[in-house]
């Protein structure tokens, strides 16, 4: 059962960080990496395991942009909206991706193939506009190149 598997994974993460309350953010990162997102049950396990009230765990999860309470697509698209990419037309790239996939930033495609997010600078400014998909960096993106690049991800 996925729920039991998930609970076990979370408990392992908590163990790795020695139940140290102050490591909450790293615990959340590792949990999200293991499960793909942060389901409610995982957060309840973390709350109990680290002895932090659930409301505070919820505050931290919703405060930081890295965390997602909902499942994500197989491929996470992160379009850089840092200043260098912005002056090179990054918002037109975002618009084109939104148009191609029929979703808005922050959403998943219906088939859970892609999740579209924006990020504020990955530090590869020479090649802006940058689009990161999973671990791949796609530089010098233009609206025209979007279709071709997305085709590589099934």
């Amino acid at each position: 059962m996925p729920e039991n598997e998930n609970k076990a994974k979370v408990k392992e993460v908590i163990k790795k960080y020695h139940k140290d309350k102050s490591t909450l953010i790293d615990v959340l990162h590792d949990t999200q990496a293991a499960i793909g997102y942060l389901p409610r049950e995982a957060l309840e396990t973390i709350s109990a395991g680290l002895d932090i009230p659930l409301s505070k765990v919820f505050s931290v999860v919703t405060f930081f942009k890295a965390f997602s309470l909902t499942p994500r697509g197989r491929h996470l698209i992160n379009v850089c909206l840092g200043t260098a990419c912005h002056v090179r037309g990054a918002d037109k790239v975002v618009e084109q991706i939104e148009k191609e996939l029929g979703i808005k930033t922050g959403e998943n495609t219906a088939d859970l193939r892609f999740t579209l997010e924006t990020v504020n600078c990955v530090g590869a400014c020479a090649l802006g506009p940058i689009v990161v998909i999973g671990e791949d960096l796609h530089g010098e993106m233009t609206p025209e190149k979007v279709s071709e690049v997305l085709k590589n991800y099934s």
Partner: protein
Amino acid sequence: MVNLTINGRQIKTEANTTVLEAARANNISIPTLCANEATAPYGACRLCLVEIKTARGRERLVTSCLYNVEEGLTVQTNTDRIRKIRKMLIELLLARCPDSDVIQKLAQEYGVGKSRFVEQSGTNKCILCANCSRTCEEVVGVSAISLSKRGTEREMTTPFGDDFSDVCIGCGSCSFSCPTGAITVEDKKGKRTITFPHNIVEFKLKKCSVCGQYWAPEKQIKYIAKTSGTPLTDYDKCPDCRD
């Protein structure tokens, strides 16, 4: 003891007192919204800003709720600069909570007319001062609600926005501590309803075994019994019937 001057008056006070406490103890008024005697100061509303000059001559603006008194400190609570800041803060709050009578009263007091800013709808009366969650955490000790998200999206909610809570005891301390009445408590027909800015949570009230009045949420009674180590049966009677 520490000697300082507030608005030209010589004040003597204990060390480890904030400028706000020292002012209030001496009948000098400083407006606040997020200050709460029962919790640690938070410094979010910024209304209590004052101009200070230290004994060494350093001048700055500080929130009086958080700044400790110092020997030789000079404080001004109502300069033109301070009034200008307060006016702007109130004008911003008025745009956020146009229906709040507390903010409207402040606006009148500080000569703020109609706000020049874009009005927010749907935030009802919550100014995100966190008095409620801080009271819940520091005084009651259950941390049932908290501030979620950040920036302009920030809101006070139960975890996941649930209309129930595993840990809330229905005591209503949050409502009591709220400066704008953004959280309301209503007891009716054996049920308590607490209405938060974005959630509604209901509680079954306990009926007194003697007079039949509903007097407190069952969950709150369970919590009190547990934390004080007293038997639940002690609470079958309401406080009035308990002699």
